[in-house]
């Protein structure tokens, strides 16, 4: 589905619910939870990661230039808005979208079709029967935010956070769907479909996390995979310098090889300015040298995307222009 049909829009959903629940009050112009910083955020943390390239994590200068290599960029967006409170329980209207923008002759165009999905997010167990009946009566998917998550209390903010997490999972699913399609398409074609740069981690899908054509670029650093001297090394990285490759593992996610890379000169700026973390599929059995060469190649490709700047986006120090293009596209079609 390219764009929301009118009935699935926020106001369309509100109107239909209002017809079923005429006594309720409806928020006329709700704020986006993500923009209002009311969404849930992980606590900052440091995690030591095993180094795959040499014994200790250290700085490695990426020399030489490479032509732009990425054939396409993938990103997703999400918006969550509270449309009503049912006895203090927030009913959240969420929209998730994802798109792959393919680069042809240096211009971006949409690959396949973008994914755009709308749904209502609510803790069904905390709602009255009247509300549950109303939600099930309208032709919009309803996601139970407590189906896979427990909350400490029915605090409205806690319930909101649960909703945002559910929306986030939907967004990741939409991204994952497109990324897996890209991989499958690559399998079908003898020459592949080229490298896909994914915004964020690629560990959510084994198919994606093990594909050689996928490169993930992580801009947020709530979790830093270094401690002690390794951390200081990461924070000291200069422009065009990467860290040693390390391994990221997680119980629910697929292990990948990762390293930090400084895209821009961070002099007189915060230590995370211009710093990205790159994820690629592990190369089982590969030597440290081979792993390093692969990291250098990918780093050159990423550095080649430093222009044009993703301005006016505030995250332009870390954001690549192809990713910004995805976001702008999704903003335009929603």
């Amino acid at each position: 589905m390219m764009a929301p049909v009118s009935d699935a829009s926020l106001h369309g959903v509100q109107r239909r619910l209002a017809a079923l629940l005429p006594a309720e009050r409806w928020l006329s112009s709700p704020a986006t939870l993500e923009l209002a910083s009311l969404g849930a955020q992980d606590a900052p943390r440091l995690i030591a990661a095993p180094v795959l390239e040499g014994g200790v994590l250290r700085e490695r200068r990426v020399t030489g230039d490479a032509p732009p290599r990425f054939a396409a960029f993938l990103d997703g967006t999400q918006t969550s808005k509270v449309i009503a409170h049912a006895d203090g329980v927030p009913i959240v209207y969420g929209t998730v979208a994802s798109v792959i923008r393919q680069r042809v002759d240096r211009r971006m165009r949409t690959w396949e079709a973008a994914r755009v999905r709308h749904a209502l997010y609510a803790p069904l167990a905390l709602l009255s029967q009247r509300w549950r009946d109303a939600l099930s009566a309208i032709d919009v998917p309803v996601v139970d935010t407590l189906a896979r998550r427990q909350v400490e209390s029915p605090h409205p903010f806690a319930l909101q956070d649960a909703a945002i997490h559910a929306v986030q999972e939907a967004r990741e699913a939409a991204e994952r769907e497109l990324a897996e399609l890209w991989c499958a398409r690559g399998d079908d074609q003898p020459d592949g479909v080229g490298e896909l740069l994914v915004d964020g981690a690629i560990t959510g899908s084994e198919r994606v996390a093990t594909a050689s054509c996928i490169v993930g670029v992580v801009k947020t650093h709530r979790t830093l995979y270094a401690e002690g001297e390794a951390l200081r090394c990461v924070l000291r990285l200069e422009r065009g310098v990467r860290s040693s490759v390390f391994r990221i593992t997680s119980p629910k996610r697929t292990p990948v090889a990762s390293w930090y890379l400084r895209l821009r000169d961070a002099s007189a700026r915060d230590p995370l300015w211009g710093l990205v973390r790159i994820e690629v599929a592990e190369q089982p059995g590969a030597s440290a040298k081979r792993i390093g060469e692969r990291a250098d190649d990918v780093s050159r490709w990423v550095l080649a995307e430093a222009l044009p700047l993703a301005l006016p986006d505030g995250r332009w120090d870390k954001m690549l222009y192809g990713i910004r293009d995805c976001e702008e596209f999704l903003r335009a079609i929603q």
Partner: protein
Amino acid sequence: MTAPPPPIPPAPPAPPAPLLGRVVATERKPNTPHEFHFWTSLDSPIGIGTIVRVDGETPVAGQLVRVYGVVVEGFSYTDLQSPIHDVLGHDGTPGGASVAATQRAEIRLYTAHVLRQIPEEPLQPVPMGSVALASDEDVAVALRMDSYLQPGSRTGIPVGIYRAGAMEAPIYLDADFLLGPEAAHLNITGVSGLATKTSAVEWLLASIFTHFPPQKGSVAAICFNVKGPDLLFLDQPGQIEDSDLAMYEKLGVKAAPFERVRYFAPYTAKGFAINTLRSNEQLAHNVTPLTWGLNEVMQFAEVLLNKDDIDAKADAFIDFLQERVIGREFHEAPLSTPHRVRSFGELETFFRDLLRGLEDRGGESWRTHHIATIRKVRNRLSNISTRCAGLVTDEGTVSDLPFGSFQDRTVYVVDVASLEEDAQDLIFARVVSKLREHLERRDLGVSHVVVFVDELNKYAPADGPDTYVRKMLLDISERGRYLGLVSFSAQQFRSQVHRRVVGNSGTALYGRMDMDELATPGYAVLSVATKTKLATLEKGQLMVRHPHFAQPIFVRFPRPAVMRGRDGVERFPQAEDIGLEVAVMRALRQLDPAVSLDWVKRTIAGHEESEVIRARNVTMQTRPERVQPFFEAQFRRVVPAEASSPPRPAPVPIRSLPSDDPYGF
């Protein structure tokens, strides 16, 4: 009987026009019933002046809305908020742009003015919809040409070709709005040399002569050649290119010079040769002298005598002369003899006699006219033949345009380029007045006359004195269309021409324009982009405004198939300065090729120059079958008259001597 216009070759069926863009509207930039915005891909062939078609997607009153518009403005921008961002992105190095892996998202956004909406009621803001290049048929509908291109009632006059992408569509003017009676007149403006004003008029006349509907009557053109040789070789073929030929074919006009052209020019001040750059003997067959006598001039004395010259008293005396003296037998004291004044020469004799009589009587006035007024009028009128030497003759010989026998599809060129301003004004005023008189009486010979006059800012300036010529131009522009008297005028600066003259021109053409001129208020309705396009138009391109067109349209027209002026003067060099004998021989040879120089020398030997010139003029005007005897007869009538006059009587002594005078001898 004029042949019906040749059919325009039917255009091959066009494939469906591909979609080029989509209509967009925002709160800050909404669409209106007269203006809309749309975006296109970066490589679309859209440009300023392109005609587009919008297909609405929501029916109104059961009908999908279709809107036609012409692009008047274009915008291009990227997702950058500030130019400094791009500078930062390239570290201040412009060359860095070439290494950017991805080109920024970029938009081509256009603004178009609505030409037509279908259905026309209710008139609503332009809806969202797809945008496509207008096809031939779309262009006809958009410009409302469909109303006058119907078989059987077709009144379209091709003015040029509209081009967009690979599409070429003929653009037609409506003859009813170009030559009357609904509207009329055409004005063309643009800078000298680049605006192709003269070329455009030459092309349009060819188009009119080809396509003017027979049921509308006949049409001829009078062109005043006011400078250089521009209009002097309209009957000679010119060089045109294949692209021009293709346009001629598409527009259904024969790529050939005008078949019937007649040239008129006064003599030089000496009176020997015709005062025109088209004086080469090879081209003399259709060049006719233009000479007027007293009768022709007096009616337009106001043209030559301005208010500073002539006060109310002098004006009254001139009226008296016109009503009572000129052209009639007049005798009254203190005149010594009856006078019949038919020429400037006879007028001068009349004045001499009158003033001598008044002086002899010691009178200071005659018929309430003071002697000073009489002297002043004599001075001013006598001066006319000097100021307009070559045009106005003392002896009253008249050689004029063929008023009453104008021919259909004929161009009459009056070459006034070498004349003084007064003489130019006189010619213009009289020719146009005569045209008007004959058209009112329906006896001109044709039912429509196009009068082409260049340098309109000189003849009808916005500022300055209210001259006779300007009043005449105003009269044509305001009332000429009812008579079939149509002005095609041109000037460099439209803003400097009287507003009512250009304002009454139903059709306006604009060639390349000067930016200073475009900055004047008269062009405020044009967008900045349209002005920019006007300032950079190539030769052969015009912007057209026509009553049927809701917005100006850009067209191309073919190079006229006539010899350019500067080519003409090279190919047909001007005749050398010649003596009287040669001048007479060349003139008479047009009537009789057997005339030899020796014969001319023998015939005119012993005669005054003025006599010879008069004899030649009378012969040329009469165009007798037997030229040589007729020419000789002119002298026999004069010379023998002197020879046969009775011998003068012997002087009579004042007083007879007395027979008895002793001192007499």
